[in-house]
């Protein structure tokens, strides 16, 4: 069964990353273990895709899996660019947290995929979003780090530049996700924007990061307020991702595929 494989993946990745943490001074081994652990999750996603005969992107649990895959990948890329060990291991920890949630809340692995989701837009729309979320989550980690430094130490300017770059990448993907969604909706349902609760919250998230970008552009030397905006924007992102299903407006959403019978 699919689940017995999942616990294997969880254990293997955790162990590999634990080794990476223990050997964090050995540059080559650390990178190797992290990449192997990430590849494990990637292999499981591929396995799931084949088994389910559809892209595993429909339910919250399935998107968490992708998130758990992209976060360490982005952590690694950022590490190669900026050489922050803490960033790398934060992203690994966050990824394990998502794998853990998936293990604690198993879902039905169902092959069914409703006709509305059977579209060439489906995979790019969701993958681009998950990519955006992973970048923006990474940027908010940087923001928390920056706020800590601001209040208790002196703020490293490099931290701010890293936050900016992550937000730029994340925002670019978020915009593409929204725009792909709009084009797909026009092809599938006849209108690009129907103020569905998920759309509404995605727009709020987009506006939040828009404020951050403009603030940084206007006041590149003022850090505190920008960092708070960035931390707050992530809260909205989480509402958009998980919280929407619990809001009174959600009963009218077309995006709640996870409760399918």
């Amino acid at each position, binding site marked *: 069964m699919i689940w017995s494989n999942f616990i294997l993946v969880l254990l293997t990745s955790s162990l590999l990353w634990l080794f990476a943490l223990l050997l964090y001074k050995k540059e080559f081994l650390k990178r190797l273990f992290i990449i192997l652990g990430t590849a494990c999750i990637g292999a499981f996603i591929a396995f799931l895709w084949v088994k389910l005969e559809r892209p595993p992107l429909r339910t919250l649990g399935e998107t968490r899996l992708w998130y758990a895959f992209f976060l360490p990948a982005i952590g690694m890329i950022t590490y190669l660019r900026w050489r922050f060990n803490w960033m790398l291991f934060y992203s690994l920890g966050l990824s394990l947290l998502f794998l853990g949630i998936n293990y604690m809340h198993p879902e039905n692995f169902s092959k069914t995929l409703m006709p509305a989701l059977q579209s060439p837009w489906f995979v790019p729309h969701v993958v681009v979003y998950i990519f955006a979320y992973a970048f923006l989550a990474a940027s908010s980690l940087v923001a928390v780090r920056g706020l800590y430094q601001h209040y208790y130490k002196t703020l490293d300017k490099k931290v701010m*530049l890293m936050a900016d770059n992550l937000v730029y990448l994340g925002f670019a993907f978020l915009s593409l996700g929204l725009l792909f969604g709009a084009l797909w909706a026009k092809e599938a349902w*006849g209108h690009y924007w129907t103020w569905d609760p998920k759309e509404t919250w995605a727009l709020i998230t987009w506006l939040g990061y828009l404020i951050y970008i403009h603030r940084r552009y206007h006041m590149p030397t003022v850090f505190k307020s920008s960092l708070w905006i960035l931390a707050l924007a992530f809260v909205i992102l989480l509402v958009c991702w998980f919280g929407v299903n619990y809001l009174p407006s959600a009963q009218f959403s077309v995006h709640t595929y996870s409760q399918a019978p």
Partner: protein
Amino acid sequence: MSIKKPIWQQPWGYAESFIISFGILSIGYGLEWMLPKTPSTLIFPINLILGSCFFILLILSHFLFRKTKTHAFLSSIPLTISLVSVLSILVIIMGILPQIPSPQNGLVQKLGLNQMTGSYPFLMINLLLLIVLGLVSLKKTFPFKLKNWGFVCSHWGLWIVIFAGGLGSGDLRRLKMDVFENKMEWRSYDDQNRFYEMPLAIKLKDFKIDEFNPKLAVVENESGELYEAQKPSMIMIEKGLACDLQSWKVEIEEFYVNSGRAGDRYYKLSDFGAAPAAKVQVVSSQNDTLRGWISCGSFNRPHESLKLDDNFSLVMTVPEPKRFSSDVTFITPDGKKRDEVLEVNKPVSVNGWKIYQLSYDDKMGRYSDKSILEVVRDPWQPYVYLGIFMMMIGAIYMFWKGREKINTDVS
């Protein structure tokens, strides 16, 4: 650090911007409270005339007043940030409260919070944003510098999307059509069930549905609710399947997608209303073996479950649709005929209308002879698409370029 300047002294900054934005929001709510709610939208040609006037005025005021302090303020980042913040608040309210008309007349309805996109404050903030965004874009476009192309693309793109999407919303028609097999239909209806004559007729030749196989599930006898002590709680039926479902071992001995009951068993049958059925063998945790037939039934055949014990029964779920499509013929007033297949996610354009496969009679399931289509006319769509593609280019530029190196050593 700069010295704090008194409020309302030029150049205006964040304090003034936020006061003005919230001021406009208050005026908007004042209007919403006092003026009667008329669900009127601009339609052609008034929207086109007003839109053109607005655009021309925007360009004129940009070139006439580009050196003034007002222009500098209107195209400033503080005003942008304050307006986007106010808009965010409105959209957050929209994201929490259901956006549906309500017969009640409380505070929510009086302030238009349940119909946000048509309320004065929302429209006023958007209009102001459109002015600010337009002036900023004009400022970066004239004089044009090549290094600004990403900026110009993304900002003009967004401006076009809001402008064309907002003005065009009155001209957008989204109607539904119910077509029945071997019948001709030329009437469509809207949300309020008002009928319209279409400039084309549609004849449904055949409606087809492919379904996924039904699933096995255990339900509680008393409540009829799905029993979900363990996941997976539902497993798709396949020929020869053997699986663990909750505390039972289930084996499929026979399975027919189309069948009917005769005597003590089901036989393969391709009748109108034939339903899926399976013969199962169930072994409980106490090693008791049960055998029996289950079926999800159809609109004219009963469903059948297998009682496992006093508390639980094994059932077959109603199959979910995998694909549904309509073979149709379009007939236009000039007498031309066109055969097409309509499918979800694959609309067809005829005579300026886009036709979408929407739904069918779900009580009849795969025996439905009714296909529900959506017909859409959106003359402003090409302009919105232009904006969307410009924004995409802007996003790719942003991804590629990243944050430009900024001089953070000013202080």
